[in-house]
């Protein structure tokens, strides 16, 4: 085979890949547009009519915290002001080495609480449990550091009293009515086991007393690009998979789960890099294996705001981790792939994620390199190489444009017209450098998963010696000799 032949074949492979992945995304776009339109048609009416009373579904909110001394008080205060009739807040101090626990004790008048803690999901030992004198619905679990968010959340789930569990990142900013919105699918369909909502970028917004007061765009370029990325990922990425019950991820920043199913499957996997995705994929596998009817749903409402990394280092770390987590989640639940009883998850979502999301960066990076190289070397004409690049870029712009349009059709959160113009500009600019860079990082994440290297995130100094200040609190874990009692 001559180099010319190789390039000829490569052209086809790259072209078909780009067209395939973009057709996939455009189909999701179509499904999402229909889904959002349908959702919005009834949402206002339901809201006005108070159709979904939430009185019968109390929620436990689990907030893991590790060394969050600076923000923990304001985060918890905001969570205590959510508009929902009955909920409890379970904050887990995951062996913080700073004064997170002391701040909580002082800020909320916490007192040791003699809880008969039950260890249904294994986690690192619990050192003590506190309840607030001022807020009867607030408890704090102080535990030894388990080295992962998953371990902390699992300890929190064990202490939850209510049938629905919302897992919220300590630095997430929730909408005041977020719980009311995400609980709706549980009320509409009792087989619902998990619900996620749209997460937006908080950079550039004005936050007051723990809530978003004014929506705005960040001035930092990286954060700005992520605004467009999040619109794509949530408005049609997730909304597209949800109607066919093939949603593979509910963001770790904010998700609501049926507690019984969480406990049944052993909670979050503490060894998973992307514990949020791994949980959802495992939920699918578990329910499909048991042939039980279930739904994992996404609500398009913007319910949660999160900080996006503003430095290349932070962004790289996040993207490498996400890709690593994706590979691990799919591999750990590989029996889902083309499973006879797996439905849309096995035959559509998992293959799509495997081919386009997991291994996609290989073809994407190779595509750029081969086309540019072949153009420079004269194996294909420079205009032809440019046309291939133009096709890839134009498809990228199209996807972002459709996400911005969908946002305008549905929630139009960005109030100024210049915000919309800026988003369109970013939709074009991100294709020159940013997209290629993230493809490289994803490739690195893929390699990290393939070659079994643990991610730096796992070895963040979270296992330092524990403070003795709380040792006097009675350890309330279950005695091993009487494990028959739950």
């Amino acid at each position, binding site marked *: 085979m001559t180099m010319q032949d190789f390039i000829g074949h490569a052209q086809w492979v790259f072209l078909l890949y780009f067209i395939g992945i973009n057709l996939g995304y455009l189909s999701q776009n179509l499904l999402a547009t229909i889904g959002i339109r349908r959702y919005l048609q009834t949402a206002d009416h339901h809201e006005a009519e108070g159709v979904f009373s939430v009185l019968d579904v109390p929620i436990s909110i689990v907030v893991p915290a590790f060394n969050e001394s600076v923000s923990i008080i304001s985060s918890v205060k905001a969570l205590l002001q959510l508009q929902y009739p009955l909920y409890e807040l379970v904050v887990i101090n995951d062996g913080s080495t700073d004064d997170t626990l002391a701040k909580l004790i002082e800020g909320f008048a916490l007192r040791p609480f003699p809880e008969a803690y039950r260890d249904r999901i294994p986690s690192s030992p619990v050192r003590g449990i506190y*309840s607030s004198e001022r807020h009867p619905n607030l408890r704090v679990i102080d535990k030894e550091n388990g080295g992962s968010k998953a371990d902390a959340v699992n300890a929190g789930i064990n202490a939850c009293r209510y049938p629905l569990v919302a897992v919220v990142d300590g630095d997430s900013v929730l909408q005041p009515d977020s719980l009311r919105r995400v609980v709706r699918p549980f009320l509409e369909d009792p087989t619902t086991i998990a619900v996620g909502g749209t997460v937006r970028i908080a950079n550039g917004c004005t936050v007051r007393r723990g809530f978003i007061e004014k929506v705005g765009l960040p001035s930092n370029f990286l954060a700005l690009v992520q605004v467009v990325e999040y619109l794509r990922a949530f408005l049609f990425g997730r909304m597209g998979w949800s109607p066919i019950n093939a949603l593979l991820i509910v963001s770790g920043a904010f998700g609501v789960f049926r507690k019984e199913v969480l406990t049944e499957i052993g909670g979050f996997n503490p060894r998973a890099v992307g514990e949020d995705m791994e949980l959802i994929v495992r939920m699918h596998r578990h329910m499909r294996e048991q042939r039980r009817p279930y739904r994992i749903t996404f609500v398009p409402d913007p319910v949660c705001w999160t900080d996006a990394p503003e430095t290349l280092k932070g962004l790289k770390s996040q993207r490498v981790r996400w890709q690593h987590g994706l590979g691990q989640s799919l591999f750990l639940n590989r029996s889902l792939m083309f499973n006879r009883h797996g439905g849309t998850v096995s035959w559509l979502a998992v293959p799509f994620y495997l081919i386009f999301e997991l291994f996609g960066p290989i073809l994407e990076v190779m595509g750029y390199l081969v086309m540019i190289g072949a153009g420079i070397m004269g194996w294909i004409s420079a205009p032809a190489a440019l046309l291939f690049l133009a096709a890839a870029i134009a498809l990228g712009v199209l996807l972002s*444009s459709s996400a*911005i349009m969908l946002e305008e059709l549905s929630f139009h959160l960005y109030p100024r017209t210049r915000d919309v113009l800026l988003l369109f500009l970013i939709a074009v600019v991100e294709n020159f450098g940013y997209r290629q860079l993230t493809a490289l990082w994803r490739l690195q994440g893929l390699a990290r998963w393939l070659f079994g290297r643990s991610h730096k995130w796992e070895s963040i100094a979270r296992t330092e010696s524990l403070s003795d200040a709380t040792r006097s609190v009675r350890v309330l874990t279950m005695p091993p000799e009487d494990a028959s009692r739950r």
Partner: protein
Amino acid sequence: MWEFLSPPTSDLAVVIAAWTAATATFTSLVLFGATLALRFATVQRTRRRRRVIERWREVFAATIVASAEADLPALPRYRDDERMLLLEEWNRLHEAVDGIARDRLARVARRLGFADFARRKLRRRWLSERLAAIQTLGNLREIAEWENFIELLDHPNTALSITAAKALVQIDRSDAVRFVMPHVVARDDWPQATVMRILREAGAELVTRPLCNAILTADADTAVRLLKYTGVAQSDMIDQLVELLLRERKEPAVLTAAMRALGSGSTPPRTARLTEHDVWYVRMEAAKLLGRIGQPRDLPVLEALLGDREWWVRYRAAQAIVALPGLEPAALRALARRQQDSFASDMMQQAMAEAGIA
């Protein structure tokens, strides 16, 4: 003029790439234009909406307080495309007021020709307009739409069918119950909060008997769902129904739902069969029930449940003990101390701490 699309080579892949690039760029430009147009339209609509609502809110408020026909405010002029906004605002206000205020609002709605307008909207495809139309016609108690709404009860769309049910009850509650109740039984897609509101509006005297009959003959799943509506029914009949269910039915889900249906003023049913039930959540519900309506004589049963193998049963039993009438903190502390079983004593400590008993 399309020469720029002619690729520099005849290679098919390059041709496809060229067309893909051109089509995607063109579509993006269209989306860009459409988004800006949409933004412009939204801004205009929001401004107009604000103006209309401000103007008419005053008119509606003056209407509500007008004691005589002569006091009714003059109605401002409005554009045809503002009428839907008015209708929505009127519906919102109608839901918020009661009694004579509603009658006065209805009078204004007739002067504004809302009934005819709503009838036209009822035949449109756009769901939110149809819903607003049904709501308006229900609020105006338009008997002429009765048959239409009866038909809509069978509509597969949940919002449409339940809004029609609500409208029927508003139009003629005694006749509506006959048509609506079978759908309350059959339609498990109807949101419970709305069903409760409809049944409450229909009134306990009309709802209780058909509801009890439906529960008695329903399968387990339906009985559990219907038992949630017993809060709107007459409590004496519900107590009898629960007693019958606890005696006759075996399904654990029905037993727990029946226990939940008992009000706090009810006579305690015989719970022995329930506190010793094989299924843990039946035992838990029995403990919970005793926490609500139990008497000091139930203490031995609850104390036995403190040693249950299931955490939730122990928890509810401990809470029930703390809630029993006549048990002083000192007696509770003594009870906690005398527990040989550490699980039971831990749970008592927790329940006492929750109740603020140190």
